[in-house]
């Protein structure tokens, strides 16, 4: 939501913010008689102020400031004290308790401002002055908040960024160098230049990033925007992919040539086996999108673009903490592609697209004489094209999305779990006792808990580790006088392994046990009372569990609770003889996993046999098109499940031992006696012609 707004008014916003906040600080200098002329003077000083005055929206604000200034001037004439409290009231309504200090602030600021005017931004201000300006700025920002409702959201961001500077909890008012300026430490330096950068960063935040991540330098923040957009793009492309997977593709001579143009796809794609199919698929869909096959050059260029795009997508999937340049590059590359992408999206979501792709898919020879019976009666496409059933769309989409997303997610998950693990390890009783017994015990303990450690067997290493750890610890504990040296070494000796393998961990451990560190000989609370952990599982954990279950089910070829039954007009079908819960594994679609070329080959063969049914299940996984051929009757039940557009099963691709499997899951709770059906996904005209039941 915020992003959209930002886009809508990209230029004005930062200008406003910069203008106002700057000129506020300028206005706050009561050194002139005529307030507006003072403002003008300040404005000439600062280029950005021009923008402030240029914007008519700021009139009210300016008036208020002018008014305030007049008061201030009056106050100066009168002799200070009384009016200062007045201005305090005007500026910081919320901070009523500070009104006392504010008077002094104002005073200092006046002098500071005068000084800085003389010295042209000299750094010789008193610290109080610096603080004042900073505070002023945030306060005015607050004012803006109230004044401009339209900008509320954006300014809120700004406010939240600015707020840490109000706190001044750990004041470290050093003189600044520019590098330090950019950081948003609570105790950052409040000098004029500093404030400027503050504001600039605010501005950047407004225009570019949705989330003002606190300790970013300006450049980083700039780079943030590409990341955001790329992330967005990735998402979309993922969506698109899930859609366009319904395009069955095949290897035609013309398109396979394009692979050469797409070499980067192959090299950069980190997914396990990027093959022709993936790239071809995109080209196909692209052609469809344009619906013009006339000009080969355009198609070619499109391919190039597509290739690039593909590259981006795959890169995005993995490049999380990649360098700035990369991201920017991607960003640039993506921009010209926006239109195409959209087109693809559209084409892939409609039924006609599928039909088209089918015809193109079945080799030129077939498409030449369309009237003929299609190679196979119909196919099963995963995921099925949607449009007709909006409710199921989401489901299918989600399903299709998950395998694509999974590699990245898993990585993050791993990292997260790793982090949590290390945290957990921290909770383990820390062997700090110098006593031999205790040590022994702790060793065992740690070993049990699977912490990475060098065992006692390799004692040489051990000694090294010991020394190293002791050194480390001593460094860390230098400040902690509480620990006796002996205790330090003892403690270090007690937990050398962990710290040697994971120094960072040791650091945190040491940091944790600071003040009452004289635990020598004392046991820890955690030995007696278990740390309570929530039994609630995270979403990822649940997902993982589910995946494990599926895997197990596939491996043991589970097919319980199912029964083959004959149906009038349909032939064989499968009914449930027990209840299935939603998302429960029902059966696997077992067959030969074959490549597309093999599939076309087989289709041609099956086409000759009138009795051969349709058991070719086409699906796409990780950008690669696969087919499971279950034409041969193996007695497995997965192949016997009939079609229904509103079936009670959904298909899901599960990778087991690097081989994709198709499993059928219950879409909803299934009662006993219900026939199991799922959507074959074939909406092509030919298929419908020959198999009218596909329409139901």
């Amino acid at each position, binding site marked *: 939501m915020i992003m959209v707004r930002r886009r809508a008014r990209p230029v004005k916003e930062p200008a406003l913010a910069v203008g106002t906040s700057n000129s506020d600080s300028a206005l706050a200098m009561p050194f002139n008689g005529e307030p507006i002329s003072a403002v003008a003077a300040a404005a000439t000083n600062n280029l950005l102020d021009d923008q402030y005055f240029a914007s008519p929206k700021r009139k009210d604000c300016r008036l208020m400031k002018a008014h305030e200034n007049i008061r201030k001037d009056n106050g100066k004439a009168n002799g200070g004290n009384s009016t200062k409290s007045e201005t305090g009231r005007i500026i910081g309504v919320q901070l009523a308790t500070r009104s006392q200090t504010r008077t002094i602030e104002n005073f200092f600021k006046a002098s500071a401002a005068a000084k800085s005017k003389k010295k042209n931004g000299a750094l010789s201000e008193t610290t109080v002055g610096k603080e004042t300006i900073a505070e002023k700025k945030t306060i005015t920002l607050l004012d803006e908040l109230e004044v401009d409702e339209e900008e509320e959201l954006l300014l809120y961001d700004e406010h939240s960024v600015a707020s840490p500077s109000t*706190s001044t909890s750990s004041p470290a008012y050093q003189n600044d160098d520019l590098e330090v300026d950019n950081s948003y430490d609570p105790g950052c330096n409040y000098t004029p230049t500093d404030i400027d950068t503050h504001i600039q960063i605010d501005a950047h935040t407004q225009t570019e990033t949705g989330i003002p991540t606190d300790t970013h330098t300006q450049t980083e923040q700039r780079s943030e925007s590409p990341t955001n957009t790329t992330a967005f793009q990735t998402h979309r492309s993922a969506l698109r992919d899930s859609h366009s997977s319904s395009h069955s593709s095949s290897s035609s001579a013309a398109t396979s040539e394009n692979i050469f143009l797409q070499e980067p796809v192959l090299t950069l794609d980190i997914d396990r086996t990027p093959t022709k199919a993936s790239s071809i698929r995109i080209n196909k869909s692209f052609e469809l999108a344009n619906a013009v096959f006339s000009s080969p050059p355009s198609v070619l260029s499109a391919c190039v673009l597509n290739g690039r795009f593909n590259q981006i997508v795959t890169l995005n999937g993995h490049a999380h903490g990649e360098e700035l340049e990369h991201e920017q590059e991607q960003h640039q590359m993506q921009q010209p592609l926006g239109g195409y992408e959209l087109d693809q999206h559209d084409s892939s979501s409609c039924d006609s697209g599928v039909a088209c792709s089918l015809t193109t898919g079945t080799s030129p020879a077939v498409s030449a004489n369309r009237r003929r019976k299609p190679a196979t009666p119909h196919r099963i496409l995963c995921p099925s094209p949607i449009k007709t059933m909006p409710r199921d769309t989401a489901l299918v989409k989600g399903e299709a999305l998950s395998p694509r997303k999974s590699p990245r997610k898993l990585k993050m998950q791993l990292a997260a779990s790793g982090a949590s693990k290390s945290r957990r390890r921290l909770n383990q009783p820390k062997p700090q006792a110098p006593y031999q*017994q205790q040590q022994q015990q702790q060793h065992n303990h740690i070993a049990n808990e699977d912490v990475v450690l060098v065992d006692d067997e390799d004692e040489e290493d051990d000694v090294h580790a010991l020394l190293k750890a002791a050194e480390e610890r001593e460094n860390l504990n230098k400040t902690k006088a509480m620990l006796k040296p002996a205790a330090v070494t003892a403690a270090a000796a007690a937990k050398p392994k962990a710290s040697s393998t994971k120094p960072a961990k040791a650091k945190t451990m040491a940091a944790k046990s600071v003040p*009452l560190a004289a*635990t020598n000989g*004392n046991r*820890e*609370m955690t030995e007696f009372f278990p740390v309570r952990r929530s039994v609630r599982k995270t979403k990822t954990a649940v997902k993982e569990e589910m995946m494990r279950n599926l895997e197990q089910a596939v491996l043991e070829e589970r097919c319980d609770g199912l029964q083959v039954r004959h149906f009038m007009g349909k032939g064989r079908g499968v009914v449930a003889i027990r209840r299935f819960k939603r998302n429960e594994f029902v059966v696997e679609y077992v067959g030969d996993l074959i490549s597309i070329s093999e599939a076309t080959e087989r289709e041609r063969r099956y086409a000759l046999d009138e009795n051969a049914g349709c058991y070719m299940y086409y699906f796409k996984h990780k950008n690669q098109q696969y087919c499971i051929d279950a034409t041969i009757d193996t007695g497995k039940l997965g192949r016997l499940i009939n079609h229904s557009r509103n079936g009670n099963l959904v298909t899901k691709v599960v990778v087991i031992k690097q081989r994709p499997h198709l499993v059928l899951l219950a879409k909803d709770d299934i009662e006993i006696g219900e026939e199991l059906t799922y959507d074959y996904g074939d909406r092509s005209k030919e298929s419908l012609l020959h198999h009218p039941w596909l329409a139901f």
Partner: protein
Amino acid sequence: MFEARLGQATILKKILDAIKDLLNEGTFDCSDSGIQLQAMDNSHVSLVSLTLRSDGFDKFRCDRNLSMGMNLGSMAKILKCANNEDNVTMKAQDNADTVTIMFESANQEKVSDYEMKLMNLDQEHLGIPETEYSCVVRMPAIEFARICRDLAQFSESVVICCTKEGVKFSASGDVGTANIKLAQTGSVDKEEEAVIIDMQEPVTLTFACRYLNAFTKATPLSTQVQLSMCADVPLVVEYAIKDLGHIRYYLAPKIEDNET
């Protein structure tokens, strides 16, 4: 919305004084039933468990369960700003990142407002099992404080030995040894001054003095302190807060070996 009002700031002051030496920060878990705080000290040797029942407050409202991570040092500083007789009101919005502490003077003439930032603390919560303690000693809180202070001069650790006759605190160090024996008071004239021992089995445990001394910071809260001991189980030092709840300190025993 969370709002809790206490008639006297002094109680809250004392509570903060009682925990702020052990804990740098803690999470106040506010629920319908009251406020709870449970946290271990940094070395994980002791544990503080504070319970303030909602009915002990003048006014208590907690719409949604709320966890307020606070820097206890800052909190104590804020409470220093209150007069003992002031009314204290703690307020926080749901999902707020600040808590407001308001002091009102008895005659309502002075109202001071303090807003403190909350912290997101990643502290683990320990499940404390119900335990049957073999020895439960009730004694004057001041007496206990005194004993701990005195014995700390002799040794880092104090041995508490509880038998039928009484409870013996002893410490031995370079200076020498110190023994303090308390016998169960025969006739209970004043309940506050009574030493009552409820013993199933004799127990001898060793504890670190410095923690015991930290616990005795809670002495102003209560006239009596209750020590519950059981072999190989943390000592429980409980101070009741009148009409409001209690504060319990758990201290893991030292490893007993021949040296001590």
